[in-house]
């Protein structure tokens, strides 16, 4: 790997934002996605759990969170593809002192559907919002005050709000997912939140279908059909066709119903991608690297393995480690805890190793410039 100081966006059509346990990397390519340039590490030695791209209002702004083991968590942005990053004096995202909470990680950065709106999901589980495109942030008090909050329990990764889904058709509606707590939805811009876990299982609790407490790993939605949601659970795959009011299982031929990511096809609301993991080892089952794809909204799933090693390949992909670009045909990408980035230029039919040798990958976000 030859890491440059920066990538040149003038020659780029596709960009991958790759967060790792020891810094961030930017990968850029022409529309063919044949060859990738790499820049990084950005924030060397720091954990980068979340990255995002804000292309609204002709911006080309990349966001990244960084956590230093001693000096805490900051939110940074760059307008020049990583040549320079903001280094804020005070932490942009932090709890009010009276909450008694201290920020550990920023797990998710999301760009809102309204102008200037942005969100951060954090650990301990809470939501922050910005109305000025990330210049200032405040705690979403309505969720912080939810009566369930004191009963949410940390999963293996901590008590985190890891998923934020904006609704392009309804600026007042937002879904979040918490491990462990499950799915919550607001229909009034964050003032009040309703639990939306009916039908989602919690195999690790005596009550297998509790009101809340589920360990939801990832939820995805297609912008053209915002009432439909796909969900990878800690055990189980689910779909909702009514914006989370009810869920039903869609494990139909998948090698394991355990996994972390859930990625949508950019152009087809019936197509989604997952990376099943063996339940105990939490690696690709049988040492065979396989992505599963559904083209019928979970009615059936097909393993995709062309180009992947099919023996002694025990890989793990974390919840934000898979994404799709919006080119034609769509590119699908994922990063592993062993530091490999794989990609497909044909919607998952064939795959190749784009890059190896990175630190453990926490997130992969695909951007079309």
């Amino acid at each position, binding site marked *: 790997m030859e890491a440059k100081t920066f990538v040149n966006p003038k020659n780029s059509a596709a960009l991958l934002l790759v967060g790792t346990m020891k810094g961030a990397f930017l990968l850029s390519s022409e529309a063919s996605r044949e060859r990738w340039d790499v820049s990084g590490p950005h924030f060397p030695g720091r954990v980068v759990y979340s990255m995002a791209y804000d292309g609204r209002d002709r911006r080309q702004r990349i966001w990244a969170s960084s956590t*230093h*083991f*001693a*000096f*805490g968590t900051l939110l940074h942005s760059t307008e020049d593809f990583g040549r320079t990053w903001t*280094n*804020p*004096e*005070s*932490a942009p995202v*932090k*709890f*009010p*002192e009276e*909450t*008694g*909470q*201290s*920020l550990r990680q920023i797990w998710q950065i999301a760009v809102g559907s309204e102008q200037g709106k942005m969100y951060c999901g954090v650990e301990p589980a809470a939501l922050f919002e910005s109305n000025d495109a990330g210049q200032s942030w405040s705690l979403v008090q309505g969720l912080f005050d939810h009566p369930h909050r004191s009963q949410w329990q940390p999963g293996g990764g901590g008590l985190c709000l890891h998923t934020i889904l904006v609704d392009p058709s309804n600026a007042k509606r937002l879904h979040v997912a918490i491990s462990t707590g499950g799915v919550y939805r607001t229909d009034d811009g964050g003032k009040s939140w309703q639990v939306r876990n009916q039908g989602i299982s919690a195999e690790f609790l005596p009550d297998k279908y509790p009101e809340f407490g589920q360990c939801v790993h990832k939820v995805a939605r297609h912008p053209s059909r915002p009432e439909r949601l796909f969900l990878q659970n800690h055990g189980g795959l689910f779909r909702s066709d009514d914006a989370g009011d009810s869920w039903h299982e869609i494990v139909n031929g998948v090698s394991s119903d355990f996994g972390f990511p859930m990625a949508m096809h950019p152009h087809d609301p019936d197509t989604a991608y997952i990376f099943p993991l063996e339940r105990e080892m939490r690696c690709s089952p049988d040492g065979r690297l396989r992505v599963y794809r559904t083209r019928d909204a979970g009615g059936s799933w097909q393993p995709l393995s062309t180009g992947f090693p099919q023996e002694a390949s025990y890989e793990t992909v974390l919840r934000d480690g898979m994404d799709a670009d919006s080119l034609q045909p769509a590119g699908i990408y994922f990063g592993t805890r062993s530091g490999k980035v794989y990609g497909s230029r044909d919607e998952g039919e064939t795959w190749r190793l784009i890059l190896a040798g990175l630190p453990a990958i926490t997130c992969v976000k695909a951007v079309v410039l």
Partner: protein
Amino acid sequence: MAIAFYIPGLLRLQTGGRSQVDIDAAAATVGEALAVLWLEYPGLRDRLVTEQGEVRQHVNIFVGAENIRDCGGFSATVSDGAAITILPAVSGG
């Protein structure tokens, strides 16, 4: 009263590159001395303490050779000529 702060490399972006910051203040405790330091270099505060005002778990602050966790925390006393050293804890992995 003169107090010298020694700043670790990773935090020198917040002090204009300075490894040593000398303050002249009537500070009786480490907390009072840090408040003066943060007035001059506000970017240090959030990197050293949590939202609850507690020293971050893996940050160590020494007065002379003594970690303030062992001598009263922010109430640890300082005297004229004190040397306060800020260091990240040793860590691996």
